[in-house]
């Protein structure tokens, strides 16, 4: 019996293959975008895990100091009996982090597997200066002038492990970056604090990459969820139509004695079977999307957080299983309403296909009421939320509320426009558009969401970029940046520069722990460069004088927001060193707390810290010549001197890279919304014959009808776009004023870019017109006889 009933139900899809393809593709697209984002997140997190585990950084305490540990300090501690392992770290090329280790004392770990128990390999590692790298890193380094490479799959991407001596030679340093403290130490040792002035640092979860990048991945997840929701609109629309068209079959089957329970089970099984097929297609698409986007994401994470993420995707069975589950859940969510309708349908319900998805006036009123509630909730969350999750909840409420309000707003606009319509075709166009709104509302909601997301994210990125460029100009006022290797070299270079530049400004900082979190304190000299350019958001009038006198501190916006610091608040910077906050400055792109004090005040507290970095003021035209001269005279390495232009260009490149993925997801979401519109118009075209046939019979040529159909779709898309712009702006405001503040600790001024909206409007119209071309062409190509069948079946 089940087979017979299933066959009867399945026959619908044989007769409507386009509907089946729509359903499978819609579900697959929804799954693809969601699971693609999840695959990217999983790959990135796996990379963070590998990086965190390298050299026991996630577990072992370390000793370090600004400027590096000297060999003498290390030897003294070893002689005192402490079991320590030295590590030298640094960047050799833009994408290559060198980690130098002492293979005999380094903690055991998977990355060193090629050396374990192999005396020859170990000897070669030390003697030949072999670099252990991941296969993908080796591929990227092909042709570089480096020591021999040896592959180890467990080395994090973008990292090379080598002998400490080789690392020091490559990085041109004689210092040790830090000393790892073995967990078990001989008993009876003198305490470290009494032996050394080095800082003991405990692995700090709050600064781990995974935590730093959480908000970035949350953003990606939110986009994936939005795309998933847009895809589900397609699915719900296709399922709704299919179930509506099968009302007659369902009634007949029930009349023939098939129980409602059995019918529901079979319909659910049918949906599950379709979802399984869609899941496989969706996983393949999702894998492709993730593989295509991953290099961009890896670049973003490298630029934003210095996180090395593998640029290639590995297949994860857990990811596949979660994609399958999400597809099934999506299909269940999208099909729930249709199944509920079947369950509630009386046995003797009229069998003729009711106007599918024609929401009644009451349904639209209920929908509008729900929309208002959600919009009020969004406003409440924006004003009083106070957390990142509240920010995302606010975004969700805003988007869903706006989407639900769309049909009522469209109806009102069309009703208003009808008053100004002249001519019967214009009247028909508007009246018919009004009647189509309920049937097209799901697709138009999807379009609204995609457009609003585009406007919102575009406004956020545009505002951010404009602010960022201005901020860079302020922050990077000096023309040349210099990094020296030793105090002696610093003295020599700055001495040489003293008479050949306008000013040499020390760029000196010390890492500290303030209020339980890591921070960096910078010392600045009193100079017009800072007074005239520093991007202060708020300050006391005597801020720079206070700083010069050692009586004040500037804090970055992130710290001010996190610790709720205001101007005048006292801030303890160390034992007996408390000064008031005299200014708050913007510090985009920095995930940590940062402070600025007067140079003398900092030097008094940290007299032993070498000053190795400097900003140099000189005529821009003199910069290239000065760089060449300094390199030659002091044998400085390539990355020791950077001109302002290069630093700005690098910063902007990182910035633009950051939003490549967002842009790609934006386009994909718009594509999905266009597909939703196409499927709705296609399914609707069969139901449109009773609308079109009388007009045709009264003497309106098919070409004119086709143009009117196109104009109607364009009108609905244009109105949806017009409504999406304010929603997008609200979205941008939430992103800038709520989510960014919670996620990154800074707030950006909001700027608007009307040119971008017009461009988006053009794309929305193009997408809508492309989506309606096929249905309209089908109408145009339809023989008159088909239209005549609307009126009667008798020939």
């Amino acid at each position, binding site marked *: 019996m089940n087979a017979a009933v299933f066959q009867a139900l399945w026959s619908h899809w044989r007769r409507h293959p386009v509907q089946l393809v729509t359903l499978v593709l819609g579900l697959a697209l929804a799954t693809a975008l969601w699971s693609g984002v999840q695959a990217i997140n999983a790959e990135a997190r796996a990379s963070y895990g590998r990086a965190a585990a390298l050299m026991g950084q996630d577990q072992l305490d370390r000793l370090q100091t600004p400027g590096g540990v000297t060999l003498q300090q290390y030897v003294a501690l070893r002689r005192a009996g402490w079991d320590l392992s030295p590590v030298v770290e640094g960047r050799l090329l833009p994408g290559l982090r060198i980690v130098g280790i002492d293979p005999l004392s380094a903690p055991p770990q998977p990355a060193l597997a090629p050396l374990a128990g192999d005396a020859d390999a170990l000897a070669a590692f030390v003697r030949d200066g072999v670099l252990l790298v991941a296969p993908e890193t080796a591929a990227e380094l092909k042709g570089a002038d480096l020591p021999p490479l040896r592959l180890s799959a467990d080395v994090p991407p973008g990292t090379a492990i080598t002998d400490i001596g080789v690392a020091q030679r490559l990085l041109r340093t004689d210092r040790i970056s830090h000393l790892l403290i073995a967990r078990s130490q001989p008993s009876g040792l003198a305490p470290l604090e009494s032996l050394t002035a080095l800082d003991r640092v405990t692995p700090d979860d709050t600064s781990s990459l995974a935590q730093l990048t959480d908000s970035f991945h949350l953003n990606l997840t939110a986009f994936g969820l939005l795309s998933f929701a847009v895809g589900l609109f397609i699915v719900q629309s296709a399922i709704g139509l299919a179930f509506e068209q099968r009302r007659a079959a369902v009634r007949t089957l029930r009349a023939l004695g098939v129980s409602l329970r059995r019918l529901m089970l079979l319909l659910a099984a049918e949906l599950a079977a379709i979802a399984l097929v869609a899941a496989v297609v969706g996983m393949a698409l999702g894998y492709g999307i993730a593989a295509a986007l991953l290099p961009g994401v890896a670049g973003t994470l490298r630029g934003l957080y210095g996180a090395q993420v593998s640029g290639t995707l590995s297949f994860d069975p857990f990811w596949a299983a979660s994609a399958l589950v999400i597809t099934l859940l999506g299909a269940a969510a999208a099909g729930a309403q249709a199944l509920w309708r079947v369950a509630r349908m009386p046995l003797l319900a009229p069998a003729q296909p009711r106007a599918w998805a024609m929401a009644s006036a009451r349904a639209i009123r209920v929908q509008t009421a729900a929309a208002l509630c959600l919009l009020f909730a969004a406003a409440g969350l924006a004003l009083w939320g106070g957390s990142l999750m509240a920010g995302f909840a606010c975004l969700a409420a805003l988007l869903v509320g706006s989407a639900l309000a769309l049909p009522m707003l469209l109806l009102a606009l069309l009703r208003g426009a009808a008053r100004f319509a002249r001519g019967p075709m214009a009247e*028909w166009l508007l009246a018919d558009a009004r009647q189509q709104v309920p049937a097209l509302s799901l697709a138009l909601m999807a379009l609204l969401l995609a457009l609003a997301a585009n406007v919102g994210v575009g406004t956020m990125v545009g505002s951010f970029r404009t602010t960022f460029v201005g901020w860079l100009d302020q922050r990077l006022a000096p023309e040349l940046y210099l990094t020296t290797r030793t105090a002696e070299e610093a003295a020599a270079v700055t001495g040489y520069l003293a008479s050949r530049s306008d000013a040499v400004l020390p760029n000196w900082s010390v890492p500290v722990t303030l209020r339980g979190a890591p921070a960096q304190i910078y010392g600045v000299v009193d100079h017009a460069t800072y007074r005239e350019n520093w991007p202060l958001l708020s300050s006391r009038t005597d801020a720079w004088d206070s700083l010069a006198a050692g009586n004040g501190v500037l804090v970055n916006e992130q710290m001010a927001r996190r610790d709720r610091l205001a101007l005048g608040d006292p801030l303890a910077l160390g034992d007996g060193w408390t000064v008031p906050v005299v200014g708050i400055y913007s510090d985009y792109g920095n995930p940590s707390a940062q402070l600025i004090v007067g140079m003398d005040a900092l030097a008094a507290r940290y007299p032993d810290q070498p000053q190795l970095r400097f900003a140099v003021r000189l005529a821009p035209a003199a910069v290239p010549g000065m760089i060449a001269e300094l390199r030659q005279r002091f044998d400085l390495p390539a990355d020791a001197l950077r001109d302002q232009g290069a630093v700005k260009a690098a910063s902007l490149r990182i910035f633009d890279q950051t939003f490549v993925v967002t842009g790609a997801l934006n386009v994909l979401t718009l594509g999905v919304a266009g597909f939703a519109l196409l499927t709705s118009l296609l399914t609707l075209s069969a139901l449109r014959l009773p609308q079109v046939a009388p007009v045709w019979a009264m003497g309106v040529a098919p070409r004119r009808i086709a143009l009117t159909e196109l104009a109607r779709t364009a009108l609905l898309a244009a109105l949806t776009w017009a409504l999406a712009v304010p929603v997008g702006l609200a979205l941008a405001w939430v992103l800038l004023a709520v989510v960014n503040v919670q996620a990154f600790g800074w707030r950006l001024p909001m700027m608007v870019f009307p040119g971008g909206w017009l461009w988006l409007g053009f794309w929305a119209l193009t997408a809508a017109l492309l989506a309606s071309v096929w249905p309209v062409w089908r109408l145009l190509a339809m023989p008159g006889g088909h239209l005549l069948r609307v009126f009667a079946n008798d020939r």
Partner: protein
Amino acid sequence: MLSARDLTKSFITSEGPLQVLRGVSVDVAAGESVALTGESGSGKSTLLHLLGCLDVPDSGTITLQGAPLHNLDEAGRARVRRRQVSVIFQQLNLIPSLTVVQNLKFQARLAGVLDPDWQGEITARLGLSTLLDRYPEQLSGGQQQRVAIGRALAVRPELVLADEPTGNLDEATADAVLELLLDGVARSRSALLMVTHSPRLAARLSRVVHLQEGCLR
């Protein structure tokens, strides 16, 4: 006024070509009302569609006021439907998204011949004055057909073609609707060719022609 000669029409079906009309010739004079009767499948609607420029014959000629219709292109046929020939079907004559008053005026405005006085007179005679703001779905079958008649007559067409306009109505309503149709046609001085299964209704028209197996008898 209307003259059709040797019309043939066939359709492609899954069992091969189906010859529906086999050389039909018919004339309708100005102001005349003609009933077209015949069994189901005899080709009545097909003939009506050819005469109304809704379809084209395989062969044969059709002239209206001496002008040939059979060789017009789609735009030409649309123009005839707009201005010279009005068609009333058995069902779904009205545009669902427009109100009664908008439907009544629609064809006349398309043709650019809207006459408010004439429109008002038709509306009143058809008893539609109280229904003007309603939508088709809010009307009974009889009311819908009255609106269709009003819309068809609003252009004062030379010929009204009606395809079983009362086929979906009960006897009393059908009588009333036909009465209004005949009255309206007479007032607009149009000719009428009406397909009907009902000998009783056919008898109320000035002439009856019978179609059998694709030929007029």
